């Protein structure tokens, strides 16, 4: 049992952590607009180890790694957020439709899911990316159209589980519309799963963006994106230029971790059973 608490309660601590994580992301976002593109020009200051002028050092073309990393993170974040959102939306629609519109729709959607899972998805992504003409557009479409399946299955089973619960039947007996029930009863129930699905998509998207770019279907190589920076840096790590890979890698982990903790904290804060802690 808890006694009378002193100082901050769990809820306030959580809000503080939440503010810290969001602050971290905002600082990166702000820096990415503030740092000038001039730092990305080629210069004679090549292969410098981290110093006061170049916080993360410079690469073999003399570009400032700090600027590249921050700008790369912005692009990767935007790409990740947009792609994850798109695939979560597809997954939700498919999952809810499969669970509510009867057997035929369920069979069709399950078949579609099996089809997408059955194909090696890198091949599929390359195909979609190529059709869409590469670039940011191709990556977003390619990744989001191939990665909704697992979440759609999860949503489908969750909705099937909750669909015949008593409070939803009661809501129906009040003459509430299917839309009202989906919005007020079903969505809040599957929201935690959607949130986790969304956050787990993030690193996936960033890795696939790097993979597609590496294969030549994605972004152009001079674009600062974390995936490109990391894959380039890997070839230089054996020559002792550790700063090319360590700082971008650490920042990437930090960013993903703060997204993760934002999601987790929000979920806990919204959970009724922990409202008083």
């Amino acid at each position, binding site marked *: 049992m808890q006694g009378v608490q002193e100082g901050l309660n769990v809820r306030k601590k959580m809000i503080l952590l939440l503010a810290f994580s969001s602050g971290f992301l905002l600082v990166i976002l702000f820096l990415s607009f503030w740092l000038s593109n001039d730092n990305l020009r080629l210069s004679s200051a090549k292969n410098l180890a981290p110093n006061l002028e170049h916080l993360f050092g410079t690469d073999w073309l003399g570009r400032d790694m700090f600027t590249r990393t921050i700008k790369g993170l912005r692009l990767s974040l935007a790409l990740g957020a947009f792609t994850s959102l798109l695939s979560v939306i597809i997954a939700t629609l498919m999952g809810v439709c499969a669970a509510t519109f009867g057997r035929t729709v369920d069979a069709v959607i399950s078949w579609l899911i099996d089809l997408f899972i059955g194909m090696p998805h890198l091949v599929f992504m390359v195909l979609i990316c190529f059709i869409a003409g590469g670039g940011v557009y191709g990556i977003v479409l390619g990744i989001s159209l191939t990665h909704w399946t697992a979440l759609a299955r999860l949503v489908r089973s969750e909705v099937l589980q909750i669909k015949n*619960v*008593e*409070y939803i*039947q*009661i*809501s129906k*007996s*009040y*003459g*509430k519309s299917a839309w009202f029930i989906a919005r*007020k*009863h079903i969505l*809040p*129930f599957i929201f935690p799963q959607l949130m986790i699905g969304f956050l787990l998509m993030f690193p996936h998207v960033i890795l696939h963006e790097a993979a597609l770019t590496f294969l030549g279907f994605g972004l152009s190589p001079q674009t600062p994106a974390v995936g490109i920076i990391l894959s380039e840096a890997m070839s230089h790590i054996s020559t002792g230029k550790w700063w090319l890979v360590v700082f971008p890698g650490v920042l990437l982990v930090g960013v993903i971790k703060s997204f993760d903790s934002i999601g987790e904290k929000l979920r806990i804060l919204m959970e*009724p*059973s922990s*409202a*008083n802690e």
Partner: protein
Amino acid sequence: MPLIGENLGHYYQKDRWIIKDTNLSVAPGEVLGLSGYSGCGKTTLSRILAGYISPRIGRVSIGHKTLERRAFRPVQLIYQHPEKAINPKWRMRDVLIESYTPSQDILDAFEIREEWMNRWPVELSGGEKQRFCIVRSLNPATKYIIADEMTTMLDAITQARIWHAFLGICKSRNIGVIVVSHESSLLNRLCDNIYKVGSGG
């Protein structure tokens, strides 16, 4: 306009009839008791009458009209377990006003306190939640209420108070009530007539 179930029959597995050839009717303002041993089909019968499931044979009608599926159903069912009948992610105020906004008189009659409104369902006891379930079924459009073991989990004094308030409101609005219970002393006390499920009458 009485609520009439004619020739009702239902099974969940083929040809294993749970209820068969059941006829019953409730007039507005009447209190009918449904009694019977456990598993005899009391709950199935009340779910059929409330329109949650359609019977395999027979029909349910109010004044010769069958129930509409999409509109507010004038026959409301109050469940045995309030914790399952309330969305755990809603605050009690939202639960209460999902069907209509009750007046202060009704809330006072069931001793629902203002401070419960902003709580989550997990923060109230079963009896407190059940009062919310009763109040929200007393919509102005409700003509009949089926109380399926509504007060089984409550102590005797609370039971008596809730039934007193509930039947008072039903009488004044001319609502027909079906009381489902296996406790014959409760039924004898409350009901005008008693129907035994599973015996054909």
